[in-house]
């Protein structure tokens, strides 16, 4: 499998805080990669660096072989690299259906190409994806009126609507009703296998990530601590120590 995303020796500082130090990571075409690490270990910061939310201080980032380290978020998204947020970001005053419609890939187009009604096919696709995440009944509700967990699901559906090649998910199961988590894992897998979206998932729930990911990278104090298959990472002494606060 070829590398879709390559993070090479990235360092990112916020004032005195080194949030990422010399981080390297590869996501291969078609896989589900996991990113774990204790609170404050720099996982979300790495997502921000990859998607252009902030410039990196050192290192470079490649998507499909081209450097994206100096691009802004919108051009990166148009290349097919998208993220979701830990705190979720949706368009709160718009209905779920409208959230889906404006997340379609064709909304990337030039400003005057937007001066057309939402095509029926796009609306159907939005409906289908809302049904896919179990929000079809909420279609005409304001997105801001949904619960936190439902907003997470909506944000996931919006991302799929955009047809990304690579999707970075920041704690997709946080706030989701525990009885629904297995269903969500199943949907993440189906997004990967059926829709062909490569995934990089930040996850605190060990059961979820061990189940889902093909390979896992563990960060601690902003540095890569370990990487490998779920079993290798789980059995790594340093990972255990990091989570117990020994390292």
């Amino acid at each position: 499998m070829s590398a879709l995303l390559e993070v090479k020796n990235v360092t990112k500082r916020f004032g005195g805080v080194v949030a990422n130090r010399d981080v390297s990571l590869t996501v291969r075409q078609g896989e589900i990669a996991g990113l774990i690490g204790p609170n404050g270990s720099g996982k979300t910061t790495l997502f921000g660096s990859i998607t252009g939310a902030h410039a990196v201080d050192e290192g470079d980032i490649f998507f499909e072989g081209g450097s994206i380290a100096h691009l802004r978020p919108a051009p990166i998204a148009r290349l097919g690299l998208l993220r979701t947020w830990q705190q979720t970001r949706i368009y709160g005053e718009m209905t779920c259906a409208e959230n889906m419609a404006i997340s379609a890939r064709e909304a990337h187009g030039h400003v005057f190409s937007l001066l057309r009604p939402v095509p029926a096919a796009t609306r159907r696709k939005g409906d289908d994806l809302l049904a896919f995440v179990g929000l079809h009944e909420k279609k005409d509700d304001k997105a801001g009126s949904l619960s936190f967990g439902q907003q997470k699901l909506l944000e996931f559906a919006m991302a799929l609507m955009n047809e990304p090649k690579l999707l970075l998910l920041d704690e997709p199961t946080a706030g989701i009703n525990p009885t629904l988590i297995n269903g969500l894992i199943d949907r993440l897998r189906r997004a990967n296998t059926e829709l062909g979206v490569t995934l990089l998932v930040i996850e605190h729930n060990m059961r979820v990530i061990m189940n889902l990911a093909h390979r896992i990278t563990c960060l601690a104090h902003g540095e890569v601590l370990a990487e490998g298959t779920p079993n290798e990472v789980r059995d790594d002494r340093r990972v255990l120590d990091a989570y117990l606060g020994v390292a």
Partner: protein
Amino acid sequence: MSRATFPRLSDWHIAAVLALFGLAGPFLLPTLATQIAFLWLMVVFALTWDMLGGRMGYNSFGNIVFFGIGCYAAAVIQRDAGLPYFEGLALGLVAGAVLSVLAAIVFGAAMLGIRGHYFAIGTLGLGIAAGEIAAGWDYVGAGSGMALPLYPGELGERELFFCYSLFALAACCFLLFRWIYSTRFGLALNAIRDDQDKADAMGLRTTPIKIVAWSLSAFFLGISGGLAANMIGFIDPRDVAFAGATYGVWMVLMTILGGKGTLWGPVLGAFIFHVTQELFWTWLLGWQRVALGLLIVLIVVFFPQGIMGWLAERRARTAS
């Protein structure tokens, strides 16, 4: 996609009544023709303000600049082009529209990157600066303003002419904007309002979208400026063209009163505001400013969502 418009069933009824009033009103009430003309001007003010303030979440206190540019463009063309009245007026309106759009592109590129209160304050400065520049510029009459050429028609015809022109402008503006809000462009504006960083991260071209939105507002404001200047017959840099403290504030107020980001809110707000003002203003003698201030407080405290927003909320509550 059903958009929140209340009362939904009677959209066409409202439109029909307004069209009837627009067409027959000036005939039936010829003494009120000028007042009705100003009413349509207020509708244009509110509709154009809502494009940014309501739909896109950018509160501009500088939209008056485009109106002022429209005033001066028409006045200068009509003074210098040596054309008969109507030809001069037509050319002046075109020039006003073009210059206003150009100004919106330039100001937009410079200012639409600024968010929230900073944008509001920045645009406020824009309006004040424009008034000061006009007041110090001899080519446009400096502080003493400019007089517009006399309307050539018979007595009373002039009022009707501007009444119908401004009605046509308001109707075009309403219909075009209504269509725009039904397209993906309208959704994109709402997305920028709700979370601009998200919209960026989803690949939307937010900067061109914002500039085009402001340009559309500027287009109609520029034309309205030329018409209003001719109707009033005289432009003062600070009290007519760049009248930020009156027109500039009213734009905001009317939209919020009616309900920003709604289809009928700006129209309703303009009607209520203008009629109340005409009824009570003279009666208030020197207290207009105080009354206006009080009105602002009342609207912001009791109708933060505006009348349409309040109605929609009530409907949602009774429905559930």
